[in-house]
């Protein structure tokens, strides 16, 4: 790990330079206060201060819909290539996003590796950007408010400059190619970083008590709260689509034209009615209550048991995007009997 400082007015030069390492993807403002991750040509459109993009970076690794396998005529079945992004530089990742990336890595790069994910992941450069929480952020409850790895470079905004953390050899390559942008960090930079850290910690207004949560959920599996929640939840799947760690998918076969067959994969959500439908017509989670409960249990109980941590990073996207204002933090407060 190495630490530098960079003047704020040099950010456009850095953004321009990053294009050399791949397609630059960063937050842009689509409508007032609404940000989305887009490929960047004109770097003046980049809004690094965006707190959360509607759809997270997962779309850079696994597109909402892509061809896994295809066959034309009598040829051999071959891998689809429409998910291949080539080298990508993801600029503006917050700590929670980086933790989400690490969670996706646990799922997709362990045991049977997902080749479509891996190809994009191997070519991804991550440039982090320090954020400040709003009233929907609860990453500090999940230990994802800071990160020591999972990025190549991380920029923390300080007064008039950035503290630049270089984590990987790729990050070092970028810094070494542009010595004019970086200076050695000073003791004062370190001091200001610590002050910012303290101010940021105090700025969190939302917190989720995760103490013994998997077991608490085990105890509460028959609680009426899930029926209540089932009445409120529309099972629209918005929370899953915007969740940076939700990555369930469905697979369908198609023959778009004579002599061409393909197996297509697209984002799915456990909240959709057909999710747990099996051949013969039996649905293992036919009620909305069962489906919404399953989503929370998967994130806070199942994933913990399998991988040692929850698959929630506290980014607040599900809170922001729920059409019936279901708030994950309130749900768990209710489960604990605090509401």
């Amino acid at each position, binding site marked *: 790990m190495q630490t530098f400082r960079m003047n704020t007015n040099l950010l456009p030069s850095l953004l321009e330079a990053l294009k050399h390492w791949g397609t630059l993807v960063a937050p842009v403002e689509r409508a007032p206060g609404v940000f989305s991750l887009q490929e960047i040509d004109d770097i003046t459109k980049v809004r690094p201060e965006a707190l959360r993009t509607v759809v997270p970076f997962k779309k850079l690794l696994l597109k909402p819909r892509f061809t*896994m*396998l*295809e*066959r034309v005529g009598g040829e051999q*079945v071959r*891998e689809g290539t429409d998910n291949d992004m080539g080298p990508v530089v993801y600029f503006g990742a917050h700590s929670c996003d980086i933790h989400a990336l690490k969670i996706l890595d*646990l*799922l*997709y*790069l*362990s*045991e*049977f*590796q*997902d*080749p479509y994910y891996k190809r994009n992941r191997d070519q991804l450069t991550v440039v982090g950007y320090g954020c400040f929480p709003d009233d929907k952020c609860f990453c500090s409850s999940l230990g994802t408010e800071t990160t020591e790895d999972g990025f190549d470079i991380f920029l923390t905004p300080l007064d008039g400059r950035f503290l630049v953390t270089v984590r990987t050899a790729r990050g070092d390559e970028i810094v070494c190619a542009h010595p004019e942008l970086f200076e050695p960090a000073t003791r004062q930079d370190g001091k200001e970083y610590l002050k910012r850290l303290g101010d940021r910690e105090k700025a969190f207004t939302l917190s989720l008590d995760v103490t013994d949560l*998997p*077991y608490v959920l*085990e105890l509460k*599996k028959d609680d009426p709260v899930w029926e209540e929640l089932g009445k409120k939840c529309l099972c629209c799947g918005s929370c899953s689509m915007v969740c940076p760690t939700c*990555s*369930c*998918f*469905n*697979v*369908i*076969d*198609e*023959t778009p034209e004579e002599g061409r*067959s*393909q*197996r297509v994969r697209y984002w*799915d959500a*456990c909240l959709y009615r057909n*999710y*747990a*439908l*099996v*051949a*013969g017509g*039996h649905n*293992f*989670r036919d009620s909305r209550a*069962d489906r919404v409960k*399953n989503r929370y*249990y*998967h994130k806070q*109980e*199942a*994933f*913990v*048991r*399998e*991988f040692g941590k929850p698959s929630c990073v506290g980014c607040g996207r599900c809170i922001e995007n729920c059409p019936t204002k279901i708030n994950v933090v309130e749900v768990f407060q209710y489960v604990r009997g605090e509401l």
Partner: protein
Amino acid sequence: MSVEMSKIVPPRTAVRSLPTGDNCYMPAQARVMRIQELTSDVRMFDLRFNDPRLAEGFTFRPGQFVELSVLGVGEGPFSLPSSPTRRGFFQLGIRRAGVLTDFLFDRTVEGDSVGIRGPLGNGFPIELLKGHDVLLVAGGLGMVPLRGMLHYLIDLRDHFGRVILLYGTRSPEQVLFREELESLARRGDAEIMLSVDTTQGKPWGGKVGVVTQLIDDVKLDVAGTYAIACGPPVFYKFMLDKLVRLGFAKDHMFLSLERRMECGVGKCGHCAVGYTFTCLHGPVFSYWDAINLPELIYT
């Protein structure tokens, strides 16, 4: 309790690949050698991989499954009614249930090729069974994976104690592998008893009644026996209760479960139940593990 529960989920760390392809979603082509009608809606497909090295080298554990696909039509999980002790080919027992199986029944003939990915899932706990009596209990289509297990036990007969199969179906026409089972029973390698719910006027030499009643006719050394059950949800409901009442420890009883295994490699999420992916940590679970996952057996 949390320690017990977490035991069935091995940490997902080691990277491994399937013998059918480096890309775990890419099937290997296998030729349909023979199609046999088992009942009016169940057929057995004998398959052999086109790649001779894969064909000879392909092995699996009884209780594992494969994903069979026809690109452009669909893909689905199927149990193997054959045993890995017999190399060079494998079999799939398939019930007509949808678009893909319609294609296999109506449009597929001997000599055609289909895609296969596997073997997938954990399979039956062979190591535990060694030196013990093994009680296989099948209901309906549950006989498909248990036939693979039965062949395995018989092929490695000296490693196991008594081999007992109790198998029930609704009616005599629905009994899978009837002649074979009757001939195995005569040979004496295994104690085999069949039952049907009703004879529907068809000739029938076995018991009439629900399969749970067959247990009453067998003398079991419960402490020295492992039970393996496979059948529809209603079958589990009665069979597992019965075995517990007979004194079987809940971790000496295993069952194989059906879920919507789609990717088969623990990624797509469709077969997740509680903290397990049925395709990866199952489809075989001990009864103890299954009752700790409330959704797993009954819904």
